[in-house]
């Protein structure tokens, strides 16, 4: 167990190192001088020189990388050109919205995808199964922004049940009631991913239900519901859990769209605006943090295998 964890952390560190080189070189891949691109046409030569100096662009490139990576390791991701504040501060400002959005979305995905997938599997071939599979296909096919816009049209603009945009922090008055601002965005974000989990749960349940040990369980004379939950589902979840790593990756990219549609002050929207503002330190910082998060989530997914499947030797 210990050796496996250390090995996996080592592999994650190597991935992070490779990613950091890509993220770092990204600023040098911009055609022309990064500083004049960042500052735009109207910049004076003094401003350009000052920014070059601040960014250390006159040093050899490997020195620049070491300085950047060393600072990043100490939690210093540089300063935002637009906000004139540390990048970590910019990320922290959007973190509450993005983390809560991701959590609520994950809850929807689990609460909808898995039980409905089970239902479709145990009703295989009936109109319930066909209806649910059709619904899943539909949800997986429509783009997140389209679902988001329609949710706004119907439930915010039309019925007025939920706010259509923005998110005031739950720590600044309003408390947990502010979570209603995240309801529609989280549903829009969950829809395609829950549909994928639904289909995966259904397919995996059907695969497992053909296994010999399920017949053994039935032969014991235990209740069919127990066969489904304790024998089939328990094994089917192995495949579903591994999909959560990918689901998380999908959430990151789709959150960019969702936060923009619902005007949420999250990291996804920050990164879009930073791209438009050519605020490269922020873009680099967000990508680096996202990579770290992704590595941690996948490490946790792999470790959770051990809990679900005793055959996995760690």
């Amino acid at each position, binding site marked *: 167990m210990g050796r496996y964890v250390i090995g996996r952390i080592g592999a994650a560190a190597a991935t992070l190192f490779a990613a950091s080189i890509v993220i770092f070189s990204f600023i040098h891949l911009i055609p022309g001088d990064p500083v004049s691109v960042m500052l735009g046409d109207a910049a004076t030569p003094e401003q350009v020189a000052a920014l070059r100096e601040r960014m250390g662009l006159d040093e050899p490139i490997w020195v620049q990388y070491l300085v950047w990576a060393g600072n990043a390791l100490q939690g210093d991701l540089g300063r935002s050109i637009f906000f004139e504040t540390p990048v970590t501060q910019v990320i922290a400002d959007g973190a509450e919205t993005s983390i809560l959005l991701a959590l609520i979305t994950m809850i929807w995905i689990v609460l909808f995808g898995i039980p409905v997938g089970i239902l479709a599997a145990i009703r295989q071939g009936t109109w319930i199964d066909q209806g649910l599979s059709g619904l899943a296909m539909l949800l997986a096919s429509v783009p997140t922004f389209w679902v988001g816009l329609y949710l706004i049209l119907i439930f915010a603009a039309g019925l007025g049940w939920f706010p259509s945009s923005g998110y005031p922090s739950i720590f600044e008055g309003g408390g947990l009631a502010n979570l209603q601002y995240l309801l529609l965005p989280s549903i829009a974000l969950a829809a395609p991913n829950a549909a994928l989990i639904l289909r995966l749960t259904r397919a995996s349940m059907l695969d497992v239900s053909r296994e010999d*040990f399920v*017949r053994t369980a*039935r*032969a*014991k*004379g235990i*209740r069919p519901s127990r066969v489904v939950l*304790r*024998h089939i589902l*328990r094994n089917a979840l192995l495949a579903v859990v591994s999909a959560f790593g990918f689901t998380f990756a999908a959430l990151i990219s789709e959150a960019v769209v969702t936060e923009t549609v619902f005007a949420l002050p999250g990291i996804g929207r920050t990164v879009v605006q930073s791209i438009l503002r050519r605020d490269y330190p922020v873009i680099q910082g967000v990508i680096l943090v996202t990579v770290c998060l992704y590595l941690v989530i996948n490490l946790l997914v792999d470790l959770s295998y051990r809990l679900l499947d005793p055959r996995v030797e760690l």
Partner: protein
Amino acid sequence: MLSVTDLTVSAGPRTSPIGIVRGVSLGVDQGEILCLVGESGCGKSMTSLALMGLLPPGARVSGGSVELDGHDITHLAPHRRVRAGRGKLAMVFQEPMTSLNPVTRIGWQIEEAVRVHDPDANPTDRARELLEMVRIPDAANQLSAYPHELSGGMRQRVMIAIALACRPRVLIADEPTTALDVTIQRQVLGIIRELCDDLDMGVIFITHDLGVVAQIADRVAVMYAGRLVETGAVAPLFRAPLHPYTERLMACLPDPAARSKGFATIPGSAPRPGEIPDGCAFAPRCPRAQDVCRGGEVPVVRPEGGRRALCHFPLAEGETA
């Protein structure tokens, strides 16, 4: 005790069903091992799954009945049999490697059956006792083992323990030793024979291996293309088979004294369900077949000693087909 009458299992559309098991009648008594013998695809496993109420989707019992101690259990799934107090059939499957749930401990899997069939017993004590009955060493500690930590022979013993947890009157064993090494095979056969005698239960032992039949059977039923072509006590049946198929099957047993003659085989292959010819299904491969064999009903031959065969031209003692 267990009495099967004219059992028919069909698959495919109801308007044009395909017969997989075509009118099988058999009975098993306490302390008796009945071996059901036949080539792959002859309907042995489907017969046993039909007895258990575990037919796969698409297959169904379309005729006949299964009675246990006078109660009709033909169309009851196992959990309904338990609820009706008739859950007294248990089964051991062919593949010990895949027949246990890979993610739970074997103790848990045995206790699950104990709770259903022995609600008053302490599940852990009973599970340990069952492991001891199938002679698993260090039973108390093995309860916490996962299936992948055990060898094939040990897993098959666990399967038998699970079946015994159901307190069966009749144990159905579907090729339980086919996937095992010969030495392990012997041990498992010994355990089944012993349990049959000690617990006074009936056993239906399904196999294609006549060597195994000779070791373990009290009575034999030979199956071909969904029908029982011959039944009888093991000794007379081996000494003087009535049906040419039985005789040919036994001729295929390797005989060390006759090595130079090469391997005997039965030419052709067994018909698949849906392609079974009229009349005697074995006729196309049978050296004794006449025109009368290729259509109409095949007569039942019943010489003395409870024997029975389906054949127009049964063999006399010492005759070969």
